[in-house]
């Protein structure tokens, strides 16, 4: 793999990490204020459709973006109404919002455009164009440029405005959450709403503010999908990104800078998955990594309770079995045989990593203490 390939993979990681990052920060605001939001996915999807549809009709991507944000904020408002005002179940409300978006986008897209639940392709003006930095080399001449020039032209330059905006939201979110009075109150509402209430600050107001910010960021994420990453809306185009953003949020332990790292990492997985269909590793390397993992698990449960032994020990034995299968299949051709890593493994990595982090084996992820609990003023 040469340097240019690496730069290209990093470049596409950044592109693919952008919607994750926006959605992840959206979730960060909401969850830090104590409102769980598994409806990120639905909000992204709704915003993607509305922004593409409106951008197509008006021919202006900015109107589309605003409309997308509007749609996402409306869903946020429903979530707020259900979980803040009516003190309903936040998880169920999120599930409902996901389905609402999944159904409505297709029904309306079919009624408006009649193209099987998609919007027509957006012309220039209806989508965000890449911004080329001064002096950047066009992609045709990229191979001849020096490494620094490649980094500059491929990785830094040539993204749409929203990518740079998403990167900018990280320091902004950090500043707002940790350096302003609003941020302190917002975090406090997620940890101990009663204390905030005692201080004479409206818990309901703070939570609504957080939920609306969440809607705005999700709206931008959705608009990015349909008007920058691609140039139209297609059915279910969010493709689980809201859930991956949720995973990234946990992976980042509800912190803005960590969120950037987690989203870039997950974006990198996507980019690797897109770019390389065949990742080959020698059989001995795969099976020894698996064996080490299994040994680690078995050693960990050695002195634990029966349940730990059955579950984690069973998992360990399963991994040993897989490793044995690999050795067996490669035995006749020698252990140096190159074995293909399944594509689905790379695709599943974000989820697997999130489960590992949630399990607390690698650092503990502690959610905001009052997350998911509706606040009721004492009577």
């Amino acid at each position, binding site marked *: 793999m040469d340097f240019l390939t690496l730069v290209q993979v990093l470049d596409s990681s950044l592109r693919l990490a952008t919607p994750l990052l926006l959605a992840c920060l959206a979730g960060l605001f909401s969850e830090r204020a104590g409102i769980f939001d*598994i409806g990120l996915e639905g909000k992204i999807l709704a915003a993607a459709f509305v922004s593409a549809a409106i951008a197509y009709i008006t021919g202006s991507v900015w109107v589309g973006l605003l409309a997308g944000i509007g749609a996402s904020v409306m869903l946020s408002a*429903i979530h707020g*109404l*259900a*979980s803040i005002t*009516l*003190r*309903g*179940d*936040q*998880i*169920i*409300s999120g*599930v*409902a*919002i*996901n*389905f*609402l978006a*999944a*159904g*409505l986008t*297709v*029904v*309306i897209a*079919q*009624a408006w455009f*009649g193209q099987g*639940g998609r919007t027509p392709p957006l012309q220039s003006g209806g989508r965000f164009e890449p911004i080329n930095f001064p002096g950047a080399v066009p992609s045709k001449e990229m191979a001849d440029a020096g490494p620094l020039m490649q980094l500059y032209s491929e990785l830094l330059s040539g993204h749409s405005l929203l990518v740079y905006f998403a990167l900018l939201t990280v320091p902004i979110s950090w500043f707002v959450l940790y350096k302003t009075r609003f941020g302190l109150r917002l975090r406090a509402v997620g940890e101990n709403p009663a204390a905030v209430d005692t201080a004479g600050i409206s818990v309901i107001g703070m939570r609504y503010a957080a939920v609306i910010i969440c809607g705005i960021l999700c709206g931008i994420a959705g608009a990015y999908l349909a008007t920058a990453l691609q140039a139209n809306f297609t059915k279910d185009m969010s493709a*689980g990104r809201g*859930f991956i953003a*949720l*995973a990234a949020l*946990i992976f980042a332990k509800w912190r803005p800078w960590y969120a950037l790292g987690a989203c870039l990492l997950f974006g990198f997985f996507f980019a690797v998955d897109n770019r390389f269909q065949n990742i080959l590793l020698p059989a001995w390397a795969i099976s020894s990594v698996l064996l080490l993992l299994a040994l680690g698990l078995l050693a960990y449960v050695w002195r634990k309770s029966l*349940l*730990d032994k059955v*579950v984690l020990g069973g*998992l360990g034995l399963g991994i040993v079995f897989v490793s044995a299968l690999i050795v067996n299949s490669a035995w006749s051709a020698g252990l140096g045989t190159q074995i293909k890593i*399944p594509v*689905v*493994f790379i*695709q*599943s990595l974000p*989820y*697997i990593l*999130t*489960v590992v982090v*949630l*399990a*607390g084996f690698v650092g503990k992820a502690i*959610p905001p203490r009052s997350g998911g609990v509706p606040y009721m003023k004492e009577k």
Partner: protein
Amino acid sequence: MDVMPKWADVVLVPLFSLLLAAFLSALLILAIGESPSEALSLMVQGTLLRSAGWGYMLYYTTNFIFTGLAVSVAFHASLFNIGGEGQAMMGGLGVSLVCLFIPWPHWSLAIVGASVGAAVFGMIWAGLPAYLQAKRGSHIVITTIMFNFIAAGVLNFFLVGALKPKGSMDPATANFPASTHLPTFEDMAQLVGFEKMFRSAPANVSFFIALLACVAVWYLIWRSPLGYEIRALGKSGPAARYAGIGSVKIIMITMMISGALCGLMAINTTQGESERLILNFTEGAGFIGIAVALMGRSHPLGVLLAALLFGFLYQGGAELALWTKIPRELIIVIQALVILFTGALTMMVRAPLERLFLMAWRG
């Protein structure tokens, strides 16, 4: 506090929610330029007025009973199993392994074996998140969502790899041997002399297993000591612990029962209908289970009725997509509204009903 009598709470609240959902859907149908009354009559004609329509409806209903019961059982322990989709996929894997690699002499034995396979695989897939919740405190909603995606990856891995027959292009297993094929309603109708009933509809004997599962879950939750412990833990964790009920054990058992029920869905779809394992065979039934459980108030009888309703909606939705410009996704909108009104906006639905009852009490 209890303004409404229990029956009103159990019957009126879901009905009122359904009416609200139906009203909003009718507005949506009007907005896209179709007629709601025509749509309804198409749905009824295509579903209730033809035996084949019933055959399709009951096929969907079977899936929704299993997943609805699964979500209900977990609800009783205050657990939210959103991973029905993944558990059902794993169940499908279990069914195919049992059907493909064990030579069954007769379908009646095969369905027992396949049920065990489906239940065990679903159980394992729910057991891991349950363990993480019980022992490590990881939020079960998030882990089961993650396990849905991982299950899709695992299924994909097997269907493009080890289980795909050589030379075949589509990601699916080989067809199951004929001795494992389940009798459909069409076969059963012919047996008792009704020709031309349930023509080529996919409903099959697993519908009766779903009914049995309803009875079993009813017995488990309301008549068995284990059910008492599950409900006690669901009502109050500290109180249950004080009464000597181990939360780790109950969380594990409840989630594994829930996973087994979701897995069982695969005998209907995989052994009964497609007769081989295909990608995306769950078609979102794991998620519909949430709507069914909420609408059915987590009671097996309610789940059965709600599953029938959603079966009707799914078959009716297919009819609409066939004859009108309304896409099948309309049903997802209705499903979302039902979840919203019965699960998240219950206060909004209950408030006017309670006011009505207060007025009635005062005369």
